[in-house]
């Protein structure tokens, strides 16, 4: 390129960059727009020969929309989508670089089969045949480990293939590791999963109470709403209830540093205070709630209790006792109770992994709903409890499509006869095809895969799609690494890059990702989001959904009965307008139709059963996501729902009911106020392992870093994992900033650099390590103990020791 051309291009890019920033600066982003985007308009940078289209961001569960610029078959620019309600044009540092996830130098481009210990390239035909043969030989020893990053059609196809085709329910997603406790919490409280509210609450709350949630780093665009309101002069109180100081704490009015696990006691203490002060909302509770205790032994269903029994249970959690358990001062506990006692304030509780990755995760979710219901802080915009998710389609693909081991699409269950009948009817299966026995949840699935083949219930073939369990499972030595020493195990991995999981894979399938395929995600606020394919995948990489359908058809060719519907047709048969079957299993025909649309419309019939109605695909295609239930109005337009169970906003609430929990556990339209006791965690610091070890994420990297560590800006910004240690603890142990230290738990040890008073800081006796770094696998150290109901492991607390490494 000539010097003139370079200068011209630079000036052009500068102009485009300044225009984008000026447009953003002109808006008060989440408030009243000074310079609103005109309907249907979107001020995009004008770049020559670049076409733009919408897509949700590939990373977290927020569901920001980006505009993707494509030139000559390549993504060349990304900017925030100003038409998107979720982010109004804003993106976080990961989102702005999302286009680069496609172009890492080591993209997988051809199927690889391990032969004599070496991975060698093979054809797709051979790869598909190898998988089909393994499954055909032992279908009940096969499992699928999927993801909250699967698109909705991908998850739906996998679910139908294994549950409807193989009569095998051994399918579970990585979302089991991040939000399963929220699912059991919602179901046991309201009778149906997913938040009743939405992000609009952030624009209306007076107090934002974060329960173990580093909101500023983990959901930075949503956090911008809080910052934005403050900049406009609004008073919004931020209370950070946390186990360590983070960037969120820096913005908080009150930072309440609690002991791990003590959140259970704190929530009960708030309930006790509300009753003591007679500040609970008697009218709301008597009108819309029942009380429930854990039962003996404790169970997910629990047992009914009276208000007096509830009062007696929570009365154990006095300010004094809770202060001892939690480490919070009586004044801090009183502050929390004050906020819930004040009905003039709107209080929003938010949580994510701190509450969900918890051996009492279900209980903690129950308690958060309980204090909001008891206090009547429920149902007004800005006033309620809301869980957030970490993956782009943990809600859409896992919770709604039902890719959990016990679930069927639309909130149905495999162990419920009526649910199975509905699924069999919708899938045109012979009666009785679906197995009534729930499959293995994640921890159990990997235990069974890492057990000798002659062990009862052992799994021999496991297909992983769109996730990296070799880095993200807890206690990796037990749940993953053992596979290397076992005979007869066959690990299939569909992915876009080499990962810790592909290290042990026997067959690697190169996948298309994000805008290399059509897709649909469902975000944290019930918003279903669609996008179209914009560029081609590299080499021979192909869609995950195609891979599943191709294997299904190979089994059909092998005359596997399960791959036939009740009329003998292939399970995934699709026909063109003339009625001829489209050979979708042949890659060259896969895009003859929009299979996403076909699968989505098939799936959509399930969504009406539990009032989770989705919009038709063409309607979705025009929107920046729509929050379900989406219902058709008399004028033919489609209306989304901001608040469920609330009269006037939820179309399924009957007139004059005010609130109606129409899937109520007790069948009387009431929600449950649960009592769940404080329980000591399964592993606590002792003389040998005197520290608490917490793990989590950082701003720059998303989950196991397989994408963000391939984006140079992000990798350079945060190149390695570290252990965060308190300054006084470090001093006592002779550890200096940057020193290599050995971190040891009962499950393993790891050497990594120490970081003192960095971005965040731990209180004495606490350590934190992020899990994004594939070269420093902290999950070799974590505990696989999990919530008895959600089966979600606790990555946030185990006992550890730290030693300075002497070189």
């Amino acid at each position, binding site marked *: 390129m000539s010097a003139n051309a370079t200068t011209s291009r630079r000036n052009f890019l500068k102009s485009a*960059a300044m225009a984008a920033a000026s447009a953003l600066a002109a808006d008060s982003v989440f408030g009243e727009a000074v310079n609103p985007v005109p309907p249907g308009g979107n001020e995009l940078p004008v770049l020559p020969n670049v076409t733009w289209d919408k897509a949700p961001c590939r990373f977290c569960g927020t569901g920001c929309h980006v505009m993707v610029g494509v030139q000559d078959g390549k993504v060349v620019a990304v900017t925030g989508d100003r038409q998107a309600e979720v982010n109004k044009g*804003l993106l976080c540092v990961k989102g702005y670089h999302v286009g680069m996830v496609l172009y890492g130098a080591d993209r997988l481009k051809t199927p690889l089969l391990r032969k004599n210990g070496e991975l060698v390239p093979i054809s797709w035909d051979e790869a598909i045949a190898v998988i089909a043969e393994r499954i055909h030989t032992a279908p009940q020893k096969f499992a699928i480990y999927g993801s909250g990053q699967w698109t909705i059609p991908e998850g739906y196809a996998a679910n139908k293939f294994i549950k409807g085709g193989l009569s095998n329910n051994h399918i579970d997603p990585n979302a089991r590791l991040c939000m399963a406790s929220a699912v059991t919490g919602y179901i046991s409280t309201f009778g149906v999963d997913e938040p009743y509210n939405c992000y609009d609450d952030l624009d209306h709350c007076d107090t934002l109470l974060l329960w173990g949630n580093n909101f500023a780093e983990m959901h930075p665009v949503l956090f911008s709403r809080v910052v934005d309101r403050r900049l406009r002069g609004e008073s919004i109180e931020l209370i950070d209830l946390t186990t360590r100081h983070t960037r969120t704490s820096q913005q908080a009015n009150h930072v309440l540093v609690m002991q791990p696990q003590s959140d259970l006691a704190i929530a009960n203490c708030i309930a006790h205070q509300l009753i003591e002060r007679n500040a609970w909302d008697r009218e709301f509770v008597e009108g819309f709630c029942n009380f429930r205790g854990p039962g003996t032994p404790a169970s997910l269903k629990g047992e009914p209790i009276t208000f007096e029994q509830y009062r007696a249970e929570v009365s154990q959690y006095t300010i004094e006792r809770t202060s001892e358990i939690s480490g919070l001062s009586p004044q801090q506990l009183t502050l929390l109770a004050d906020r819930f006692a004040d009905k003039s304030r709107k209080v929003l509780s938010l949580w994510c992994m701190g509450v969900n990755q918890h051996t009492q995760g279900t209980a903690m979710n129950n308690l958060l709903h309980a204090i909001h219901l008891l206090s009547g802080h429920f149902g007004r915009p800005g006033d309620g409890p809301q869980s957030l998710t970490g993956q782009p389609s943990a809600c859409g693909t896992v919770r709604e499509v039902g890719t959990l081991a016990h679930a069927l699409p639309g909130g149905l269950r495999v162990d419920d006869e009526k649910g199975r009948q509905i699924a069999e009817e919708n899938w045109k299966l012979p009666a009785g095809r679906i197995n009534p026995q729930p499959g293995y949840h994640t921890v159990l699935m990997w235990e069974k895969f890492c057990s000798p083949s002659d062990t009862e219930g052992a799994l021999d073939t496991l297909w992983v799609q769109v996730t990296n369990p070799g880095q993200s499972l807890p206690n990796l030595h037990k749940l993953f690494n053992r596979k290397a020493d076992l005979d007869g195990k066959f690990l299939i991995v569909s992915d876009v890059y080499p990962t810790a999981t592909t290290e042990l894979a026997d067959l690697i399938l190169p996948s298309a990702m994000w805008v290399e395929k059509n897709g649909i995600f469902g975000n944290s606020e019930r918003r279903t989001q669609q996008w179209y394919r914009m560029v081609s995948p590299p080499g021979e990489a192909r869609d995950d959904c195609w891979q599943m359908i191709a294997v299904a058809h190979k089994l059909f060719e092998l005359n596997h009965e399960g791959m036939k519907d009740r009329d003998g047709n292939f399970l995934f048969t699709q026909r063109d307008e003339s009625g001829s079957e489209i050979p979708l299993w042949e890659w060259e025909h896969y895009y003859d139709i929009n299979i996403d649309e076909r699968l989505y419309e098939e799936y959509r019939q399930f969504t009406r059963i539990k009032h989770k109605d989705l919009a038709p695909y063409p309607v979705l295609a025009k929107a920046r996501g729509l929050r379900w239930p989406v219902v058709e109005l008399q004028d033919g337009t489609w209306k989304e729902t901001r608040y469920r169970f609330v009269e006037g906003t939820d179309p399924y609430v009957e007139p004059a009911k005010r609130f109606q929990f129409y899937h109520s556990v007790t069948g009387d339209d009431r929600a449950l106020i649960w009592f769940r006791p404080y329980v000591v965690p399964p592993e606590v610091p002792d003389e040998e392992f005197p520290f608490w070890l917490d793990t989590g994420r950082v701003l720059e990297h998303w989950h196991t870093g397989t994408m963000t560590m391939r984006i*140079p800006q992000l990798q350079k910004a945060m190149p390695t994992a570290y252990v965060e240690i308190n300054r006084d603890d470090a001093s006592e142990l002779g550890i200096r900033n940057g020193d290599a230290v050995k971190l040891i738990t009962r499950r393993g040890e790891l050497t990594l650099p120490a970081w003192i008073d960095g971005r965040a800081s731990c209180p004495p006796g606490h350590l934190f390590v992020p899990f994004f770094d594939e070269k420093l696998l902290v999950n070799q150290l974590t505990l696989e103990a999990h919530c008895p109901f959600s089966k979600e492991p606790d990555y946030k607390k185990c006992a550890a020791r730290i030693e300075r490494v002497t070189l």
Partner: protein
Amino acid sequence: MWISSLVVTLPSDSKRALAITESLRAIAVITLGEARGVRLPVVIEASDGVTSRYWYQWIESLPGVQHVELAFVSFDESDEALKIDSDGAPSPLAVGCGMPGLFVGEEEAK
């Protein structure tokens, strides 16, 4: 050349806002746009992504800066300096990265 743009949210105190604006104006690779209230559009021209990131974080660290939002990033040019470290090890060049002080100097614990 790496070009990105930001919106810097200035403090409402006009003297402090002016001081920040002057600090930014003194940097050759930074071009200022027209402020809208407390929101100031800024373009950074850097030789590579690492340097760009350095300036982003430098702005973020200026006393009084309330918030920094990314508005635009161009990423269609090849850049040797942006290649992933082959061993993934922390680089002494990671100045201005998310871990200030860790690999630069020998800050001692108390």
